[in-house]
């Protein structure tokens, strides 16, 4: 957990990545240096061996020429720290003429010319260059110049140390520098964080930061777009709550007024009865409004509801049976055409509310004696619920405003909440069905169609 937290810091992550990359590059460079240096060193030192050998041959020729023929070859003195690691032998025929003290008396290698790497019995590895004197001038002259390979290794190690050692000191310094630089570079992020942290929860104005880097602009733009959306949502919720409270005030005011009239009616029993009936009607209306509000609130909370396959025709039949008495009471004819089972996907409770609202509206807003025709059909392009009536219908203007919460078409005496259509729209949205309003061709009133697309 702690580890995750540490890694979740962008700053630490960047610094670690940066240092990792630097280390890898540095090590790579060291490796290349190693190979390059070894190669060059080999060539250089081999060159030196060859050079030394040719010097020995030349010198041997001069000695020979001078006639100084020493039977006992002298040991060359060791004059440098690397000298014990370098050895040479000069043979004339089988006779060892000259040698370094560390070379021994046996030939250093068994080849006569060229480079060879040999392992001596004492475990020391030597790089040996062998060459002969000129066949005519110095027949039988054989020179060996050898060098312990360990000396090359030491040189290489020294080279490598010089390459790698600075890294050891530089890395912590680099880490500090990177930490600072990354911190500076990420300052706009820090600023954004500070800005967001110091914000009030209600503050919805867009975030504005000076000198925003290009990389952060899409993020801040997305954040601002989100803020805007949230603000619109909060605003709409706030307006809805206010509207809802206001809408509830009117029925409550009506109940209060009617109750007070009933109290003051005295001996006027007709007025008393009238006021009491209206009081009850006011209660019913407030109840209806509250139910609609609750339905809407639940719908707003429900982003997706579990849906199942159900028979729309049967559902519409049930709802029609519930509403038929209301239609009969108004002398309206409610005709239902839903003989064929039509399976749709949806949540039964919601679809019942949808069907009830549509039919209830048709009954409520059509005059007494009107005709209401409800049908569930199965055309080729899906399944269709159609509710049409012979009522006054609606103007295009009213149709457009119908979805607004609490919008009620003027000039009707029906005590509606202005929420029914909002609920219908919301259910359609949640259930993924299409809603269409039109003038009824057959009956002349309003024609609402709900379409379930084929899937």
């Amino acid at each position: 957990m702690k580890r995750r937290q540490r890694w979740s810091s962008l700053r630490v992550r960047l610094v670690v990545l940066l240092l990792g990359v630097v280390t890898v590059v540095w090590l790579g460079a060291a490796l290349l240096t190693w190979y390059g240096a070894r190669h060059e060193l080999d060539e250089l030192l081999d060159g030196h061996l060859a050079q030394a050998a040719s010097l020995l041959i030349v010198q041997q020729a001069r000695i020979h020429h001078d006639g100084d023929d020493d039977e006992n070859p002298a040991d060359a003195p060791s004059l440098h720290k690397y000298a014990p690691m370098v050895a040479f032998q000069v043979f004339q025929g089988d006779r060892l003429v000259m040698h370094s003290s560390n070379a021994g008396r046996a030939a250093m290698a068994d080849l006569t010319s060229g480079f060879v790497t040999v392992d001596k019995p004492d475990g020391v590895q030597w790089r040996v260059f062998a060459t002969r004197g000129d066949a005519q001038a110095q027949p039988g002259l054989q020179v060996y110049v050898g060098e312990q390979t360990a000396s090359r290794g030491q040189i290489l190690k020294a080279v490598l140390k010089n390459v790698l050692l600075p890294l050891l000191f530089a890395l912590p310094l680099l880490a500090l520098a990177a930490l600072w630089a990354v911190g500076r570079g990420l300052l706009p992020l820090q600023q954004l964080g500070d800005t967001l942290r110091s914000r009030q929860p209600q503050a919805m104005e867009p975030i504005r930061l000076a000198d925003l880097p290009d990389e952060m602009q899409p993020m801040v733009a997305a954040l601002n777009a989100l803020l805007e959306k949230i603000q619109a949502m909060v605003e709409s919720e706030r307006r809805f709550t206010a509207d809802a409270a206001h809408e509830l005030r009117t029925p409550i005011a009506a109940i209060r007024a009617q109750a007070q009239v009933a109290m003051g009616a005295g001996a006027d029993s007709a007025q008393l009865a009238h006021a009491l009936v209206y009081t009850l009607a006011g209660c019913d209306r407030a109840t209806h409004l509250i139910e609609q509000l609750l339905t809407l609130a639940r719908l707003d909370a429900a982003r997706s509801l579990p849906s199942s396959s159900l028979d729309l025709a049967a559902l519409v039949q049930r709802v029609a049976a519930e509403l038929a008495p209301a239609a009969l009471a108004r002398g309206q004819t409610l005709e239902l055409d839903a003989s064929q089972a039509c399976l749709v996907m949806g949540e039964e409770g919601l679809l019942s509310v949808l069907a009830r609202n549509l039919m209830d509206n048709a009954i409520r807003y059509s005059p007494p004696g009107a005709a209401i025709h409800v049908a569930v059909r199965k055309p080729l392009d899906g399944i269709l619920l159609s509710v049409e009536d012979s009522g006054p219908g609606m103007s295009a203007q009213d149709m457009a405003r119908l979805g607004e919460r609490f919008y009620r078409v003027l000039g009707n005496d029906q005590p509606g909440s202005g929420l029914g259509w909002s609920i219908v729209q919301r259910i359609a949205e949640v259930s993924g069905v299409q809603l269409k309003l039109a003038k009824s061709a057959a009956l002349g009133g309003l024609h609402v169609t709900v379409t379930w697309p084929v899937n």
Partner: protein
Amino acid sequence: MRILLAEDDPLLGDGLQAGLRQQGFLTDWVRDGVAAERELASGVYDAAVLDLGLPYKDGFDVLAALRQQHVSTPILVLTARDAVPERIRGLNAGADDYVIKPVDLHELGARLRSLVRRAHGQVQDDLRSGNVLLEAATRRVLMGDALVTLSAREFDLLHALMRNAGRIMSREQLEQQLYSWGHEVESNAVEVHVHHLRRKLRPDLIQTVRGVGYSIAKGQA
């Protein structure tokens, strides 16, 4: 007192009308803004109760239009909109009072009486002319210490004359104070009620100005 009630909600409108009538107000009820403006412009009402959310014409627009036409009838705005900016807007638009739903009917009545009283420059609700005292809130009339029993119409007529004491009221003006819509106006109703008032109170209380109307002298204490 004749009051115009502008309210689009059927249940509330019915309740307010019945409640105001119980308190002796002659109440006419309109259900939209256009009708409210038309009726108030006629000038026959002593005061109006105006809902803001009216169909066809918003209450604010009705107020503004009336004040533009110099209609000075006191208007009480009765609304569900309770935000302070709305109240300020309503009062600035020319409302004389701003009441939030739901309202107590007696409070509404008292506020209406107060509005009418102030519109006539009175300080008190009760009106006096000589030894005749009219109590508007309780709808009682006293002559000296004695309670005088008047019919509703007689009281309304006396109230109208005393509210406008010192001014001559025409027969038409008085008729409008006696009848709300749907009531048949009898041709000699005003004369009959004036006759009864003179008999029940004092013969010299109400002066007849021939060809013009009736008047009550401005209140001597």
